């Protein structure tokens, strides 16, 4: 008989859930889901050692545990703090948390170029989402934003260091996914950058995954660069027999054309299975893939704009209301009104029509 596992009871924003010991507050909150889950810019459940850096997931611990119900004096990073039995956590119900999170968002955007209109990440950018949820309309920063010397990372990966928020996810990816550590962080403070001659060693089969883990547009797919906006593309799940990786990907199509290939992501924006560079960068024909069906995209995402997958269309009730009668046109206003001067032929006006043309 399987031994009964002792579960910890944790209350987050007044919702109580039983979780296994060793679960972080963030993961417990994700189990509840919705607004209770704190945003996370640096934590990545698939990367060991990630988290704790961005400070967006700060929460207030109102009671440490049943055994020791004292509150924790400081806000804690929920991604790196494990739950205790009887812990009471306040996320969006705490003013301190909201205030601190506003501050963190402001700090993250301080030196961010906000070049979303020309950024390939726009539409699937976690920083964008975070700013909409927790940011203010304007900035109080009146100084020049920092810039970096440009690094060319070869034909596949595009680095924009100015957009980087130093989440270290790509560093962990390179460290844990590839056999040889290929990059780290150079320099310190506000001039720290991801580099270490990164351009010299990008021949690893799985290095393309740094694009998927990047929460912002610092690392983007060069083969997709400026080709299309993500919300114009239709994501479909597809797979192929790949000797190197699982081959399970999301294709981003427009018509029959495959614009880019990414790994499949879960609802928290995390990759399900890492994919290899060949799948990501080389297989850009529909014939390379077996298409499974449309990808489920969160309704909140801008990508779901114009994609009516699983959409429930409200019933047309007009005919019902009119007792089976079809609506009919009683009068075309233009037939009786001369206000718009139907005699003016718009095609003969030079340039756009002006109110003077109707005088």
């Amino acid at each position, binding site marked *: 008989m399987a031994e009964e596992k002792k579960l910890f009871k944790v209350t987050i924003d007044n919702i109580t859930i039983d979780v296994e010991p060793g679960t972080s507050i963030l993961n417990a909150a994700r189990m509840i889901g919705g607004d209770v889950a704190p945003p996370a810019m640096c934590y990545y459940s698939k990367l060991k050692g990630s*988290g*704790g*850096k*961005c*400070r*967006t997931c*700060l929460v207030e611990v109102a009671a440490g545990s049943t055994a020791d119900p004292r509150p924790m004096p*400081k*806000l804690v*990073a929920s991604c*790196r703090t494990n739950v205790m039995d009887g812990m009471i956590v306040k996320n969006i119900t705490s003013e301190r948390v909201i*205030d*601190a999170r506003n*501050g*963190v968002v*402001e*700090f*993250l955007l*301080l*030196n961010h170029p906000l070049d979303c209109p020309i950024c390939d990440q726009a539409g699937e950018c976690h920083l964008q989402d975070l700013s909409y949820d927790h940011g203010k309309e304007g900035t*109080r*920063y009146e*100084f020049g934003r920092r810039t970096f010397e440009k690094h060319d990372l070869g034909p596949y990966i595009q680095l924009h260091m100015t957009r980087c*928020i*130093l989440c*270290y996810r790509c560093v962990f990816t390179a460290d844990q996914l590839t056999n040889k550590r290929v990059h*780290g*962080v150079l*320099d*310190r*403070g*506000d*001039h*720290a950058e991801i580099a270490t001659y990164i351009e010299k060693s990008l021949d690893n089969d799985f290095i393309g995954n740094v694009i998927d883990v990047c929460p912002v547009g610092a690392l983007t797919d060069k083969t997709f660069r400026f080709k299309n906006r993500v919300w114009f593309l239709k994501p479909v799940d597809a797979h192929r027999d790949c000797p190197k990786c699982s081959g399970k990907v999301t294709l981003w199509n427009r018509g029959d054309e495959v614009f880019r290939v990414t790994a499949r992501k879960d609802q928290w924006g995390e990759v399900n299975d890492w994919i290899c560079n060949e799948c990501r960068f080389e297989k850009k024909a529909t014939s390379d893939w077996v298409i499974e069906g449309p990808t489920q995209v969160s309704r909140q995402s801008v990508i779901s704009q114009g994609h009516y997958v699983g959409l429930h269309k409200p019933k047309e009730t007009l005919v019902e209301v009119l007792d089976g009668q079809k609506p009919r046109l009683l009068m075309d206003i233009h037939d009786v009104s001369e206000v718009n001067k139907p005699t003016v032929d718009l095609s003969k006006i030079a340039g756009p029509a002006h109110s003077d043309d109707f005088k």
Partner: protein
Amino acid sequence: MGRKLLLEKAHVEGIRTYEVYRREGGYASVEKALKTMSPDQVTEEVKKSGLRGRGGAGFPAGMKWSFLAKPEGVPRYLVCNADESEPGTFKDRYLMEFIPHLLIEGLIVASYALGSNRTYIYIRGEYAWIVDILETAIAEANANGWLGKNIFGSGFDLQIYVQRGAGAYICGEETALIESLEGKRGNPRIKPPFPAVKGVWDCPTVVNNVETLAAVVPIINLGGEEYAKIGVGKSTGTKLISACGNINKPGVYEIDMTISVEEFIYSDEYCGGIPNGKRLKACIPGGSSVPILPANLLFKTAKGDTRIMNYESLSDGGFATGTMMGSGGFIVLDEDQCVVRHTLTLARFYRHESCGQCSPCREGTGWMEKILKNIETGKGKMSDIDLLWDIQRKIEGNTICPLGDAAAWPVAAALRHFRDEFEWHVLNPVESQQRNFGLAHYADPRPVPATA
């Protein structure tokens, strides 16, 4: 004349060498500990002594030692934090430079208590010449049997290694120090786990300041209870203060934590007063990170009591009207000093030294520096002062390590106590470039609230 325990023999000719140090009674504590005491007894003595960490936080050292996890078959480490980089603090440098054997002696006793067979001294990269002094001292201790295998038949093995940092303030934070010691980038780790459970190479580790470890020597020699009689309350023993700024006699002083701040500044035994007959404007009593205090809050607490140079008295009144003992970097500012400029200097330091790992500190420190620079150069706005307050508030407490707090506190304290000087800079952009705000009312006696 206060009692001296650490620097008593500092001026003996040739104390840096083993022969003189031994002749003056050195290494007696090692003999006493290894021959007559068990490791737990040593820890117990340190606990009894009430010794508090001398690196800044003031955490009881004996308690820190007792937190050390002791799993079977896993090595434990003692690391000596000699990465003294706090602006205004230079006590460890003096100690290591002039009586290096005192530190080695303290390290041997502490290592014995903690069961560390490999002990590291992580020293600030800029202290390059002290590395040689320490290496020489270690070699002498080795040659005389104080280090190595089975020291004096006690069955205890110990070797001490000196590791140089590469010039980063952040590596004085214990987990960043451990990362750096392991050969990695000196980013602070996220706690928990604490070093007492997972430190150097994921083994239980204790990190202590140089002065803390040196203080173990008199504790063992005198006995913990005897040591605890020196000082007042929870501020036991003696403390090294590195005094600098506008004083006649800058230098390192050993105090027994019973003298008043006023006496420390004006007595001829210590700082010797302020040069050229100038008046005192402000003082940072514990190194750059602790809150600055105006003269009228420095000598008397808000309640009207005399402020004493010890942990409790300096922090009396909390951050609203008090400050901290910190690491003992005593910086005195006379009436000609500009608090805005001074705060800018500190903000620049913290911007430069932020590791860049977590966002509030990485972005906030640079922002504060830029705003302070504007105010200092006469380009500031009134709203900038409130903005500064808001930024420091959002950094403090929200970062991984205390560097964020350390960057926020000086700005917060300067705004709290010297707001009119900041406002004067904003309102008089031309005049502020030509003259200083001066002493103003900062030395005027404060009304003491009547107590029932």
